């Protein structure tokens, strides 16, 4: 009996210590694992007793912070049901901040808008910014601290770091390394500086896989020191773009895109237009907008630049003797540049080699661009010297000189150059801590994974492209036990209870004190309220360009036989940073219209020569490293160049794991952007790529009206067609409002911001690759991309297509149950509750803007319920849906106006697409108001509607595309 009794107790203890039980606890209640500790009988009973005692106090969490539930009889101050509140903060990519305003509904952040006061946004918000709200809520984010792959606690981490800290202090920090991305945050830099004081032998390494190092080196050689540039496109009559990311990626591109577009609308600028020349190996957005474009491989591009430098007087005259293809084109372009001295900008993309950057700068210098179109500032994110590079770090790690490595939101295991073998080096580091948003490759290979806070969860600060500082404030209580970089660094400082708010605020208190700002509270509140620290932009500096910098150039490289690989950033997932975001994965890439994958982009001529078609799987090998990638044939790609978009093919992390192929595996530190040669072999396999556009050309339809500036100046209404607008019936009158939209094809750069903005605002579900392949994508707004001209270098037109809101809507008459009807303001409404799903409306929509919930896509969408926009109905299975012109915003403004007994003023309603658009291509308003922006746009002689021969009388109209070709070049495709 007594023996059995003892056995009974022992087996329970055994049960409690068994791995199975531990796993159960980990799975069911990860946060309590460490509370269990080594479980003996006493502890077990203690815990049981505590559980009994605490049973009635279930909301008393371990945090000291008090929590309260407030009944609505006493409404929380400032929260009005149905009213949105906005809080300013910033989102950063590669360290650079863009100001945002986050819309809160009932105290929940639901939508990201650009901050109009922030210089990098001016109110616009890119696709990545729009999608960041989904990242905040992403349930796939890292949620628990892992130590040696086991679930662990923050306290244990602190203990471990403190133990190590003692040893490090003793040896002055030798063996301690910090690895970060580009850091612009003043407070974080101050923390790092403090760390370096405490540990003089510590070294800080910075690694940006898609950094702008070539630009910086060129700057050093040309200007004597690394300086950042700001561009003033208002002064640029001619932009010469060398695979430029000026309006697609460069820090501050949203602002540049706005400036750019302002000079591309001849109907608004009195017939004046800038002129764009583009030479590039792979299509860019600015190349699509260019008036003249050449598709050149790297060697031809370098030759062309030398030729151009010679003609513009920037380089030695004998460079003119080297024969180049397209010499007439280049000569005409150079003449044009020479004629516009001081009003030109030559801009090379970051992927270009140092040589091209030097040539571009030399031409800029020769043509007087510095000081006119280019302003110089001290670097916003100064990078360290070469011994602070990743290469140096890997060398030290391999040599065993590193015993403590702290990595802040960086993923070198995934994106480090393939020749470095970071993983092997990391395995030699006894203690590595990775602060990561997702359980990514680096985090899984480190000894500690610390979940990072998403940017909207923590306090911080960051600088924009022009140096402007934003203090980031959290928008919501931390959802998933994350920790901010400030907190992790503070632990290294010796702080056991780091609180991000304290750290950032203390820094700014100190900073304001030093700057002599007396009233800190006022400063703090104001900075948080408007989202920027006023007057924090970096001052312009001057540097004398070194006119002889070109003399250091070596002889031109010989063209490489065979194909070359170009490593390029995928336009929507960053370098892999945003690959876990379903919105960004499902947003079609501007040129390929590809979703849910990356592909090796190859020119039509090369594909033909190699006998490749879309979806054929290639094995690409370079220096013994191999990658298998599906082929996508891309018109406008330079011959013999294969573009490999970076950022896919993760093996760990969130949703993005196992999507696409990983081009980093071919990328080396010696050739980060362009390889010299590679071998291709066909695997014979095919892969289904989910593209969304059926056909690339307008097929004889009048969908994109296009002309030249000269034609427009000669006869401004040259694109008008005879009026077909006739009806037997009396016209319906819209006495109060006639909501309408105008889209300017000249301004649209195809960046896809509006697509994601629409998705975020209108609760549009993602459908996944299989459903995209079945052509069931749900985007209400799409940007059609049409080509015309030769397939090797076609002209490109981007055309955003939302619902046309036809006054004589074909969809309405065919619905048997009145589920889609017109309202008194001329909106074409969709009554979800009445829809029975005959889908005739979609068949009868000539514009194909209607989307059908073939499945319960919204129910399947893996996002927490609180992340949906409560203003917009989440649609059921079996229901048709489409663009509503953001009717929730319209009705809200109408009610507000009615309360004040007046009409809605112009500009009071911005549709989500309009609001996010960096170039203001989309404008919405009341057509009845003759002074409204939309009425003015519609009065333009370039205004036209799609398929007007059908007499549907769309409320959405377009401004025809005007290009400004150089008459000396003649045919655009020369």
């Amino acid at each position, binding site marked *: 009996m007594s023996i059995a009794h003892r056995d009974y107790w022992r087996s329970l203890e055994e049960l409690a210590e068994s791995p199975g039980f531990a796993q159960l606890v980990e799975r069911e209640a990860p946060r309590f694992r460490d509370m269990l500790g080594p479980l003996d009988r006493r502890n077990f009973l203690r815990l049981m007793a505590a559980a009994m005692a605490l049973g009635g106090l279930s909301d008393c969490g371990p945090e000291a912070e008090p929590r309260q539930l407030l009944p609505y009889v006493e409404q929380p101050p400032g929260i009005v049901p149905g009213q949105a509140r906005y809080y300013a903060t910033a989102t950063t990519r590669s360290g650079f901040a863009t100001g945002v305003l986050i819309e809160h509904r009932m105290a929940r952040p639901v939508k990201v808008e650009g901050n109009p006061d922030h210089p990098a946004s001016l109110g616009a918000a890119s696709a990545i910014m729009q999608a960041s709200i989904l990242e905040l809520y992403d349930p796939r984010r890292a949620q628990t601290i892992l130590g040696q792959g086991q679930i662990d606690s923050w306290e244990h981490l602190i203990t471990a770091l403190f133990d190590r800290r003692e040893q490090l202090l003793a040896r002055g920090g030798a063996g301690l390394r910090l690895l970060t991305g580009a850091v612009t945050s003043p407070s974080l830099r101050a923390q790092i500086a403090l760390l370096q004081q405490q540990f003089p032998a510590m070294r800080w390494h910075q690694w940006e896989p898609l950094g702008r190092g070539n630009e910086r080196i060129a700057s050093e050689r040309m200007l004597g020191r690394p300086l950042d540039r700001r561009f003033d496109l208002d002064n640029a009559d001619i932009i010469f773009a060398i695979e430029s990311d000026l309006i697609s990626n460069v820090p501050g591109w949203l602002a540049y895109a706005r400036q750019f577009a302002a000079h591309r609308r001849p109907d608004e600028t009195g017939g004046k237009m800038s002129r764009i020349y583009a030479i590039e190996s792979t299509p860019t957005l600015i190349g699509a907008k260019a008036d003249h474009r050449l598709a050149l491989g790297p060697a031809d591009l370098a030759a062309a630049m030398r030729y151009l430098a010679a003609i513009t007087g920037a380089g030695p005259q004998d460079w003119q003797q080297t024969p180049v293809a397209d010499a007439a084109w280049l000569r005409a372009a150079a003449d044009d540049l020479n004629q516009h001295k001081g009003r030109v900008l030559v801009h090379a993309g970051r992927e270009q080699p140092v040589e091209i950057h030097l040539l571009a700068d030399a031409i800029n210098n020769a043509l007087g661009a510095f000081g006119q179109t280019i302003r110089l500032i001290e670097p916003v994110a100064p990078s360290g010297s070469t011994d602070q590079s990743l290469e140096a770090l890997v060398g030290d790690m391999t040599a065993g000189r590193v015993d403590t490595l702290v990595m802040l939101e960086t993923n070198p295991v995934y994106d480090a150059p393939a020749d470095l073998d970071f993983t092997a080096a990391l395995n030699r580091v006894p203690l590595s801590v990775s602060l990561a948003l997702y359980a990514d490759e680096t985090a899984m290979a480190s000894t500690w994974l610390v979940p990072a806070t998403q940017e909207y969860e923590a306090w911080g600060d960051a600088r924009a492209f022009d140096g402007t500082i934003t203090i980031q404030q959290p928008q919501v209580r931390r959802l998933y036990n994350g920790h901010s970089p400030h907190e992790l660094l503070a632990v290294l400082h010796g702080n056991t209870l780091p609180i991000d708010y304290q750290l950032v605020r203390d820094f700014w208190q100190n900073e304001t004190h030093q700057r002599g700002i007396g009233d800190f509270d006022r400063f703090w509140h104001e900075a948080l309220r408007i989202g920027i620290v006023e007057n924090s932009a970096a001052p312009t500096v001057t540097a004398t360009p070194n006119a002889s910098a070109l003399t250091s150039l070596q002889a031109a490289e010989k063209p490489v036989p065979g194909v070359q690989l170009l490593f390029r950033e995928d336009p929507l997932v960053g370098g892999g940073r945003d690959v876990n975001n379903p919105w960004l994965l499902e947003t079609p890439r501007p040129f390929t219209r590809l979703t849910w994958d990356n592909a090796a982009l190859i020119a039509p001529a090369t594909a033909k020569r190699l006998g490749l078609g879309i979806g054929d799987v290639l094995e690409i090998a370079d220096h013994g490293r191999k990658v298998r990638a599906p082929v996508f044939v891309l018109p406008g790609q330079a011959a013999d160049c294969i573009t490999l978009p970076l950022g896919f093919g993760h093996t760990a992390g969130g949703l993005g794991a196992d999507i696409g192929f990983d081009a980093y595996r071919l990328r080396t530190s010696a050739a980060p952007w362009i390889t010299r040669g590679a071998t291709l072999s066909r695997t014979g396999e095919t892969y289904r790529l989910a593209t969304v556009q059926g056909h690339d050309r307008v097929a004889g339809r009048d969908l994109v009206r296009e002309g030249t500036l000269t034609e427009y100046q000669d006869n401004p209404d040259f694109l008008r067609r005879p009026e077909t607008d006739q009806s037997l019936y009396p016209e319906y009158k819209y006495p109060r409002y006639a909501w309408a939209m105008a889209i300017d094809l000249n301004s649209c750069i195809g960046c896809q911001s509006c697509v994601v903005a629409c998705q975020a605002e209108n609760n549009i579900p993602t459908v996944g690759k299989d459903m995209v392949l079945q052509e069931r994508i749900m985007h209400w707004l799409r940007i059609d991309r049409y080509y015309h001209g030769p397939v090797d270098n076609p002209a490109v037109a981007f055309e955003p297509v939302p619902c046309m809101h036809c006054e004589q809507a074909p969809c309405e008459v065919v*619905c048997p149950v009145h589920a889609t009807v017109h309202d008194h303001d001329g909106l074409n409404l969709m009554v979800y509750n009445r829809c*029975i799903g005959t889908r005739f409306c979609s068949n009868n929509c000539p514009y194909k803007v209607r989307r059908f919930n*073939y499945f319960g896509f919204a129910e399947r969408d893996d996002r927490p319920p609180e992340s949906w926009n409560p203003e917009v109905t989440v649609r059921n299975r*079996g229901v048709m849906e489409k663009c509503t012109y953001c009717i929730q915003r319209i009705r809200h403004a109408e009610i507000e106006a009615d309360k004040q007994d007046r009409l809605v003023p112009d500009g009071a309603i911005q549709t989500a697409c309009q609001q996010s658009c960096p170039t203001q291509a989309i404008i919405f308003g009341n057509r009845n108001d003759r002074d409204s922006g939309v009425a003015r746009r519609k009065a333009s002689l370039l205004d036209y509607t799609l398929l007007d021969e059908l007499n549907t009388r769309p409320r959405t109209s377009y401004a025809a595309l005007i290009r400004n070709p150089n008459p000396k070049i003649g045919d655009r495709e020369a």
Partner: protein
Amino acid sequence: MTVLIDLPREAPVVGPGVTLRSLSEEVSNRVLLPNTPRWWWIGFALGMALLLTFVVQLIWLFINGVGIWGINIPVAWGFAIAEYVWWIALASGGTIVSALFFLTRSPWRSATNRIAETMLLSAAPCAGLLPIMHLGRQGLFYWLFPYSSVMGVWPQVRSPLWWDFVCLLCYILMSIMYYYTGLLPDLATVRDLARTRWKQVFYGVLALGWHGSARHWRNQQTVYAVMSAIMAPMVISVHSVVGLDFAGGITPGWHSTQFPPYFFFGAVISGTALIMMLTILVRWGYGLEDVLTGYHLNALAKVMLVGSVMLGYAYVWEAWGPIYGSDVAERTQFFYRIFGFYAACYWGKIVLNIVIPQLLWLPIVRRSEVLLFSISAGIIVGMWLERFVIVIPSLSHGYMPSYWGVFFPTFWDWAALAGTIGLFLSLFFLLLKLVPIVSMSEVREIVAKERSR
């Protein structure tokens, strides 16, 4: 099965050995005698097996929604609508043979009209179910009824779909009544010949107390004639309205005034073809060679031939419009139809509906049951292809090239097709067992006339 039917120039409508008594017994015995032929069981089992597919398909459809099919945007209508039109055309063909040729007093119609009507009654539920299955929210189909809802919302009377709904509803109800009116005297005959009690009661109740008085005959004949006079134009209008489902849209490939007659022509040929197949089946299975003679097959073959020629005319028309017209979208659409992804379907329908039926010009072909059966089967498939070509390629190549797309049928698309065929076969074989498959009362008239000649 005889391969070649003896068909003299002046073939008799009924065989020489047929008497009034032998006719009644021969036809009624099929219903009354307990021994069911093996081919019936095979046909019925096939029907039930496919019906089971249909039930599984329906359950899966209601659980998951129409997403289980291959439809998408731009091709939002797929098999369900193509097959709906296909079935309604087959059903309409039955009405055309039965009602139109009743009005023209064609003597060959008397023996085949019951087959035609039974076919119509078996096909109509397939046609009726598909549009409901195809709805995104099937449970709400009743919103098409003009009832006074609490929201004060009525159906949209401008929508061709609503016209379609109204027409189809009237047509199915009318067809049942028409069938029943013609069936009354025969039900009474079966009742009188029935030996078992429950059969006497069953057919007695159905016969509504018919005892063949002059007044009964006069009333029945009057009502039947009036109903025929209504049914004949009605079937034309029903099928025209089905055509308007497409013509009423502005989609390239649909937006054409030719659709109402085009669809009517299709109904003539496809309906006749199915009647032909079923007549040959019944004739062979029940050994009714004396009642369903070569005369009937010859007449049906000629109707098929006329239908084929009319349809050929419509196809020329279909091509002429886009080629001669100035609409780019229509023209692109047409060339896509004949050379694009679905070109095989287009050329298939041309061969099966137009080219092969031209063989019917040859009397020898019209005398071969095998050839007639094969050509008819070809036409049924060809008509299915025609419906497919109308619905799917038109949607797949619309006005916006950026939104061109293709439709691939999924397993469940095929399951729906097989399922409706199962429903049809099950119903047809069931009715074959329950009702006299040849109208005895009408054939008796013919026999009597032959006698008196």
